[in-house]
């Protein structure tokens, strides 16, 4: 049995999905937070089922990546039941997608989600009347609190067992006539196919480029008929046929809304007041700076408090271990390496990573990211992009991998390529720990802030250069600004854990293993080979100790490794005792900019191809070497 969750962006599909499948799909309060579909097996009401979470789409046309993905899934795979998740507070608009889903002729159930928010907005919906109008069961739900989900899935199961197919919606007479003409022509070619003739007829009349290319007319030559139907429609209404159909659907959807929903007084509360300030022409910008700098200091302050005692504890542990297993021996070197690996993870990376991930989750779940896109649209325009690029860039502060994938929310391929290149330059949480733990911890938070500012300047300049070289400017920002929402603690915890698990399960074993390997290399004096090979860069150009060479190599696997390996290669967590201020900053600048890690390279290659991946990586190395060398020079000139 396969249930497919489909709905508009930010309607709460992923929240419902996570409630039945465990936390697997990343949720956030901005449109387009899921760009690919997620599948999970779940035991629902005692039966094993497959639940699919499709990316949110406003309509079933194929004009952007998420829509193409959702449409091709619905047309090519067998969905036993479509669960259409609707944001009850945006009923009219949501129904436009519902009507299109009904055209697919599959068993369907509607989840009238977030009906608490609808109530807050003063909207009262008669769900019995709605179910009658649509011809499918309607279940009110509050996904975030798990309310109504049992009933929803029970109804879905019933729909699956009875296999009842809903009737497609009816539009105005002229549209119906055109649809009937084309439907008759394509019916023959669709025999044995899952695609209903009526659905294909409507898509062809809309001139949907993706459907025309993918399905064609079902192999039947009907071109004369289609063109005649289109020109008749356009003559009757005076608009293009796609507008006529979309307008007709809009009218039907809002007709249903008017019948089943009553509008009372909206409750005006903190959300509206907060939005006034957050988006106000005078206060919006300054508040954004305050929020981001506050975020930075909060993470730093918390991390520092946790780091100091943990580092001391591990130093004591290493000392007492050294008494039992002498450090010079093979066993001693390997053991010491592994302790360093564990301590690097626990004492240095986690104290900064955990508060950082929680903070980022708060920014995502409250819905502040799309507001940043609104405020920064202007700046991004100067650069030759538009505000939507801000969302993947901000996600890049968490991890480059989902950030590169999030570039799918951008409509134009040009913007995607440029934004992908820029997200790689954004310091991810792993590089953030390097900035905090190396520069911040030893030279003070202002220095760390300076590294971030330098990074932003580089991204700005690079963005402007790339945008100036690539043609095909996007039409501009069109972005829904969702209501502000208080993040739910459970969701924050689950989300932080989803990112943290990645570190614990993948990075940490790698850290410990790499530390052991480095221990062996040191014992065999083989690390010197690597270090010597890299010394033209590290020693000659950047003025760093020769031992840092090997850390940069490990950093290609995971950026956290750079930090931990540095501690181990230098033989102390008190890095400032061994490195000068100039070396600390130079090292950090280099690490922040050079080469994306292997996981990022893999996802970039998939998303934008190897050619783009190669030049983007090359640019990161050139920028890293140039800036790090300049940093060294600057320190030398000022005598700091």
């Amino acid at each position, binding site marked *: 049995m396969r249930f497919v969750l489909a709905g508009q962006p930010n309607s709460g599909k992923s929240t419902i999905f996570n409630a039945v499948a465990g936390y697997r799909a990343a949720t956030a309060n901005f449109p387009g937070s899921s760009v690919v579909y997620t599948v999970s097996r779940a035991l629902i009401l005692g039966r094993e089922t497959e639940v699919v979470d499709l990316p949110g789409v406003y309509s079933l046309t194929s004009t952007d990546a998420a829509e193409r993905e959702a449409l091709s899934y619905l047309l090519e795979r067998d969905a036993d039941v479509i669960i259409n998740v609707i944001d009850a507070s945006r009923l009219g*608009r949501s129904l436009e997608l519902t009507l299109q889903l009904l055209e697919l002729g599959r068993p369907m159930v509607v989840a009238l989600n977030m009906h608490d928010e609808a109530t807050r907005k003063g909207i009262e919906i008669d769900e019995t009347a709605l179910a009658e109008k649509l011809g499918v069961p309607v279940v009110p739900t509050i996904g975030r609190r798990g309310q109504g989900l049992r009933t929803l899935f029970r109804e879905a199961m019933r729909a699956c067992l009875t296999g009842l197919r809903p009737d497609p919606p009816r539009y105005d007479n002229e549209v119906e006539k055109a649809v009937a003409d084309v439907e008759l022509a394509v019916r023959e070619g669709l025999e044995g196919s899952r695609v209903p003739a009526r659905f294909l007829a409507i898509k062809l009349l809309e001139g949907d480029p993706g459907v025309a290319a993918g399905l064609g007319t079902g192999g039947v030559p009907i071109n004369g008929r289609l063109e005649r139907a289109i020109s008749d429609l356009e003559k009757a209404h005076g608009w293009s046929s796609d*507008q006529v159909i979309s307008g007709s659907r809009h009218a039907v959807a809002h007709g249903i809304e008017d019948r089943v929903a009553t509008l009372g007084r909206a409750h005006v509360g903190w959300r509206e007041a907060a939005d006034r300030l957050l988006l106000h022409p005078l206060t919006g910008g300054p508040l954004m700076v305050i929020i981001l700098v506050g975020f930075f200091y909060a993470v730093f302050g918390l991390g520092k408090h946790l780091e100091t005692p943990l580092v001391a504890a591990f130093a004591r542990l290493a000392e007492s271990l050294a008494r039992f297993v002498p450090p010079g021996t093979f066993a001693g070197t390997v053991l010491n390496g592994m302790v360093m690996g564990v301590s690097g993870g626990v004492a240095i990376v986690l104290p900064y990573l955990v508060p950082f991930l929680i903070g980022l989750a708060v920014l995502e779940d409250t819905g502040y990211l799309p507001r940043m896109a609104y405020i920064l649209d202007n700046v991004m325009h100067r650069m030759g992009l538009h505000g939507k690029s801000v969302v993947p860039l901000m996600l890049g502060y968490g991890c480059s991998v989902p950030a590169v994938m999030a570039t799918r929310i951008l409509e134009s391929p040009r913007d995607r390529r440029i934004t992908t290149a820029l997200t790689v330059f954004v310091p991810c949480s792993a590089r953030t720990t390097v900035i905090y733990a190396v520069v911040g911890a030893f030279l003070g938070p202002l220095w760390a802030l300076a590294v971030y500012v330098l990074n932003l300047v580089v991204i700005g300049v690079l963005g402007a250069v790339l945008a100036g070289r690539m043609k095909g400017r996007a*039409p501009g920002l069109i972005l829904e600004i969702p209501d502000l929402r208080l993040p739910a603690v459970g969701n924050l915890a689950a989300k932080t854990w989803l990112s943290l698990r990645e570190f614990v399960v993948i990075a940490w074993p790698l850290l410990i293993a790499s530390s052991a390997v480095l221990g062996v290399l040191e014992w065999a004096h083989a690390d010197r080979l690597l270090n010597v090979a890299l010394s033209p860069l590290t020693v000659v150009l950047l003025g760093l100790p020769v031992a840092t060479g090997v850390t940069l190599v490990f950093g290609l696997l995971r950026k956290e490794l750079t930090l931990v390996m540095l501690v181990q290669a230098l033989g102390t967590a008190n890095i400032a005792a061994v490195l000068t201020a100039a070396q600390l900053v130079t090292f950090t600048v280099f690490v922040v900019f050079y080469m994306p890690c292997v996981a990022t390279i893999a996802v970039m290659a998939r998303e934008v191809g190897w050619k783009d991946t190669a030049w983007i990586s090359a640019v990161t190395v050139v920028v890293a070497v140039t800036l790090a060398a300049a940093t060294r020079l600057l320190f030398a000139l000022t005598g700091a």
Partner: protein
Amino acid sequence: MTLENAHLQQPARVVELTGGMGVRSHLNTLGIHVGDTLRVVERAPFKGPVLIEVHGTRVALGRGVARKVTVDHDAVCPGRTA
């Protein structure tokens, strides 16, 4: 007039959507059609985007896009609010 110079906070009716099919269908899916009532909530300074409210949803439109939406304050149906 277009959304670029429409009055703030006053209901206005969409008279025309110019621009290519991509932009038009994108605006349609967000609930902006010819004949719909909406209102401009805020305009960001220095030719920044325009924030509108339509059918209870807030949508940010870049200046270029806002210029493609022609509206009329006088054509609003009585009793209709955005």
